[in-house]
C-alpha cells in the first residue's frame, strides 16, 4: 500500500487527499519512512523536519474534514533544495559557512507553495552554493544517484533530483544557473524545468549569479511540473527582475495534441560528440513525437559555444561579489569548486562584465529569430554522454574543475545565457543503466508548449514510471 502511495504522481496524490481516499498524514508518514530508509545510501536530505511536517499533515486533514477550501497541493509533502529561505529557519546552501544561517525573510516561492497547501518535508542536499553540476559536497557528503550510488546525481539541485526519483516526496524545487535543474532531472530520471529568466521570483533564495539564476520544479511527471510552475510563476513586487508576463494555466493546456508542432533537431553543437546510446535514445524519443503528429525538422542553429566565456564573465564576477568577504576571510571553508569558479571574477574588468551583459539581448534575439521563427521547440540531449561516476568527476585540483564543468554543462549553459526556458524529460537508460533525458528548449515564456509536448511524450512512454531500487535499511 505504501509503495503504491509513493508511486502516485503529485497530481494523483493531491486528488486522493482531496477526495478523502487517503489522508495527508498517511501520505506524509509514508514519505518520512521512505526518506529515512534511503537516506544512508542516497544522502539526499540535509534535514528531515519530521515533527513539523506531521503536525502540518494533521492540520491539513482537519481542513479536509471540515470542508475547507483546499489548494491545488493541499496536504502534499514536498522537499526543497536547501537554498530557499524561510524566516528564522536554518538554510545552509549546502555549505559550511552557512551551517547555522537563519535568514530573516521567506522566499516568495515558498509562500506561494504554502498558500497552495503544500507541506515542507525537509531540506535537500545540494552542491555548495549551487556551484557544482555533479552533486559532490565535501561538507554534507555527496548526494548519490538512487539508480546506482557510485554515479553522480547531477547538480547542483542534486538532492532534489534524487529525492523525487527515490519516492521520498512528490516534488521539489531546485535552481538552474547553468544546468542545475536539468542535469539532476536527467541524471535521476525525473522531469525538471528551467523556466524563462524572470518567469519565477528569486526573492529570498540564496543567490549564485543574479543575472542567470532561475527557480523551477523537479517532479516525476510533466503534469506535476506544470502544476507547480503555475503556482510559483508570475510577477513579484519583491523581485524587480520577475516578469509581469501573464502566467497561463499550464495544466489546463495539457491536451496531448501536438499534431503539426515543429520540433527542431540542431545539426550543430548540441549533438556533437554524443555517444551512440544517447543518440539512440534521442532518436527514439523523436520517433514518439513524430508518431503523435509532430514535425521533426533538422536545422542549423547559431553556434552557442561563444556564449560559454560570456557566461563565465557574468557568473564569475557576480559570484565573486557575493562571496567577496568569504574569499578574503574564510577561503579554507569554501570547497575547491566554489573557489575555482569564483576567483577569476575578482579581476575580470567591470567593462568586460558589462560588455557580456550588453551582448545578451542581441545574441538572444538572433538565436530566437534563427531558430524559433522556424520551429516551435528545439530537441537536444541534456548530456551527450552516459552519466559518469562520482570518482570520475571528483576534481583533484583547480585545473581539472573547469574542464569537468565544460563537459557536463555543454548543452545546458548556453540556454541560461540566452534566458530561454528548457524542460528536461526522461527518455530511457544508457548502456550503463543510468537515466538519460532530452531537453525541449523554447522561445521566451513558451513553457506551455514545452509542457504540452513533454506531457504528450509521457502519454506514450513509461520512462517516468520506472523506480530505482535503492539499498535501504530493510533490504
Amino acid at each position, binding site marked *: 500500500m505504501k509503495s503504491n502511495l509513493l508511486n502516485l504522481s503529485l497530481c494523483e496524490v493531491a486528488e486522493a487527499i482531496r477526495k478523502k481516499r487517503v489522508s495527508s498524514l498517511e501520505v506524509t508518514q509514508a514519505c518520512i519512512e521512505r526518506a529515512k530508509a534511503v537516506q544512508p545510501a542516497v544522502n539526499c536530505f540535509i534535514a528531515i523536519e519530521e515533527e513539523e511536517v506531521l503536525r502540518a499533515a494533521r492540520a491539513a486533514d482537519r481542513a479536509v474534514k471540515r470542508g475547507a477550501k483546499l489548494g491545488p497541493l493541499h496536504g502534499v509533502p514536498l522537499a526543497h533544495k536547501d537554498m530557499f529561505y524561510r524566516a528564522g529557519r536554518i538554510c545552509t546552501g549546502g555549505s559550511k559557512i552557512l551551517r547555522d544561517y537563519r535568514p530573516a525573510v521567506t522566499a516568495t516561492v515558498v509562500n506561494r507553495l504554502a498558500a497552495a497547501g503544500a507541506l515542507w518535508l525537509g531540506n535537500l542536499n545540494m552542491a555548495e552554493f549551487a556551484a557544482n553540476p555533479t552533486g559532490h559536497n565535501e561538507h554534507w557528503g555527496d548526494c548519490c544517484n538512487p539508480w546506482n550510488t557510485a554515479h553522480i546525481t547531477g547538480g547542483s539541485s542534486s538532492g532534489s533530483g534524487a529525492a523525487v526519483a527515490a519516492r521520498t516526496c512528490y516534488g521539489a524545487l531546485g535552481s538552474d544557473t547553468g544546468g542545475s535543474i536539468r542535469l539532476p532531472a536527467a541524471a535521476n530520471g525525473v522531469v525538471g524545468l528551467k523556466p524563462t529568466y*524572470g518567469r519565477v521570483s528569486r526573492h529570498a533564495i540564496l543567490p549564485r549569479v543574479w543575472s542567470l539564476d532561475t527557480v523551477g520544479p523537479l517532479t516525476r511527471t510533466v503534469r506535476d511540473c506544470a502544476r507547480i510552475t503555475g503556482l510559483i510563476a508570475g510577477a513579484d513586487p519583491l523581485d524587480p527582475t520577475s516578469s509581469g508576463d501573464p502566467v497561463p494555466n499550464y495544466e489546463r493546456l495539457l491536451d496531448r495534441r501536438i499534431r503539426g508542432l515543429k520540433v527542431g533537431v540542431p545539426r550543430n553543437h548540441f549533438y556533437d560528440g554524443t555517444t551512440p546510446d544517447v543518440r539512440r535514445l534521442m532518436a527514439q524519443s523523436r520517433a514518439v513525437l513524430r508518431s503523435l503528429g509532430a514535425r521533426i525538422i533538422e536545422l542549423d542553429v547559431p553556434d552557442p559555444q561563444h556564449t560559454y*566565456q560570456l557566461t563565465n564573465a557574468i557568473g564569475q564576477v557576480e559570484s565573486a561579489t557575493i562571496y567577496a568577504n568569504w574569499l578574503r576571510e574564510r577561503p579554507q571553508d569554501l570547497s575547491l569548486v566554489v573557489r575555482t569558479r569564483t*576567483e577569476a571574477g575578482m579581476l575580470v574588468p567591470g567593462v568586460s562584465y558589462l*560588455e557580456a551583459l550588453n551582448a545578451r539581448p542581441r545574441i538572444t534575439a538572433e538565436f530566437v529569430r534563427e531558430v524559433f521563427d522556424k520551429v516551435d521547440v528545439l530537441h537536444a540531449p541534456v548530456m551527450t554522454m552516459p552519466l559518469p561516476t562520482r570518482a570520475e568527476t571528483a576534481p583533484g585540483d583547480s585545473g581539472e574543475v573547469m574542464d569537468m564543468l565544460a563537459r557536463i554543462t555543454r548543452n545546458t549553459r548556453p540556454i541560461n545565457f540566452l534566458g530561454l526556458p528548457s524542460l528536461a524529460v526522461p527518455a530511457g537508460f544508457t548502456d550503463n543503466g543510468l537515466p538519460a533525458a532530452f531537453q525541449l528548449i523554447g522561445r*521566451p515564456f513558451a513553457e506551455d508548449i514545452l509542457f504540452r509536448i513533454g506531457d504528450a511524450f509521457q502519454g506514450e512512454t513509461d520512462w517516468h514510471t520506472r523506480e530505482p531500487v535503492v539499498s535501504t535499511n530493510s533490504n
Partner: protein
Amino acid sequence: MPKNIDAPAVRRLCAQLRGVNVTAERAAQLAVEIARVNGAARAEGAKNDFNDQPTSFAVTLIALAKR
C-alpha cells in the same frame, strides 16, 4: 588582443585589490582564464552599440515571446 596576462601581476592584484592570496601556480591558471574571458567579452563588446544597457535583456525576452 593579448592571449596572456601577467601571472605575477594577477597574484599581486588579487592581494592588493581584493585581499585574497593565491599561489603562484594558481595565479598562472587565473591569468589564462581571465585572458580567455576578457578576450571573449571584448570581442563581443566590439559588436555592442553605445546605447546598449544591461536592463534591456528583460525587455528583449518579453518582445521575443510569441503572442
